[in-house]
């Protein structure tokens, strides 16, 4: 029994490690999710966009909060260049009440988010993308009509202090794709909050 349980745990963690999710070069799917303003938002709505900075993020996670102003700066800088920011909250509001739709609306209005702040209410989008934490960035680039994943990871290399970040991963990734260059690094790891999944 002991060994059975252990191998069960082992295979579960093996499953988690090989779980689905996008890799660099994969084609990303569009979504249709509820925004804080009550409208439904899809990437297809942005006919002029050259790509998207999709960030899985939320209200409650201190890492997400620490990066709030930097997300706004990214949108201010890159939306006009064709790469708008879209934030998706993947968390279940029963598992984490601070991430409920009404709390999202409050936060969006307090910080005057310039980007859509969407709720992944069915918790399907984050799974397909393979987001494991908040914040978790996926840079998508429109190539021959498809949205291709070109960067996955953190915004920069210092969550505590933007001024001390020596590598601005997302910024350099967007600059690279805009100039037809290879993104380097294509993936980064960062500490973050686990995604709060609905208990069945």
């Amino acid at each position: 029994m002991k060994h059975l349980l252990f191998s069960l745990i082992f295979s579960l963690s093996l499953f988690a490690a090989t779980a689905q999710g996008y890799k660099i070069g994969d084609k990303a799917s569009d979504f249709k999710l509820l925004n804080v303003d009550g409208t439904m938002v899809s990437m297809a709505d942005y006919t002029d966009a050259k790509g998207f900075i999709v960030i899985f993020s939320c209200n409650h996670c201190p890492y997400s909060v620490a990066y709030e102003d930097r997300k706004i700066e990214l949108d201010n800088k890159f939306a006009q260049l064709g790469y708008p920011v879209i934030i998706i909250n993947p968390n279940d509001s029963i598992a984490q009440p601070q991430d409920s739709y009404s709390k999202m609306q409050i936060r969006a209005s307090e910080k005057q988010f310039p980007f859509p702040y969407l709720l992944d209410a069915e918790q399907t989008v984050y799974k397909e993308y393979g987001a494991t934490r908040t914040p978790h960035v996926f840079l998508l680039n429109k190539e021959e009509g498809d949205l291709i994943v070109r960067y996955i990871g953190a915004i920069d290399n210092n969550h505590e202090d933007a001024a001390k970040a020596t590598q601005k991963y997302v910024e350099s990734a967007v600059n690279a794709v805009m100039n037809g260059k290879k993104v380097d690094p294509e993936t980064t790891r960062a500490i973050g909050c686990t995604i709060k999944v609905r208990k069945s």
Partner: protein
Amino acid sequence: MFVLLFLPLGLLSQNEIIQTVNFKGFEPWLNKSNDTTYVINFWATWCAPCVKELPDFESLNKKYKSKKFKMLLVSLDFMRMKDSRLLPFVAQRKLEAQVLHLHEPDANVWIGTVDQSWSGAIPATLIYNRNHRVFHEGSYTFQELDTIIKRIIIN
């Protein structure tokens, strides 16, 4: 005289002083090759699932601390929250397992060194000794932890 000098020190718990280390200072904890089984849990006071599983880690520590066993609770709290949140939290919860504060903001350079499969989400736990190594991103129950320790601990 001996007793008078050493009694107060003996009463101090090891968490009276919580050391802040960078990754270089922490890294030796990941690669010990003695008889001891190490349980290294990455957590933070702001991480709800981490805080929820802490009592199970404390119970595990109580059960095995007299054996060749060492638990380390590695806090990833922001530097500015060490005094305002981490220290009061550890004192209030009377945590017995050793707490270490890891301050290394450039996470991309060290997360993969702990384990290649770790995306960086917490809680995350590394359990190892010279014969076995088990890493898990996500929560553990006491039963799961106990099962792993029973299986791999070196007597």
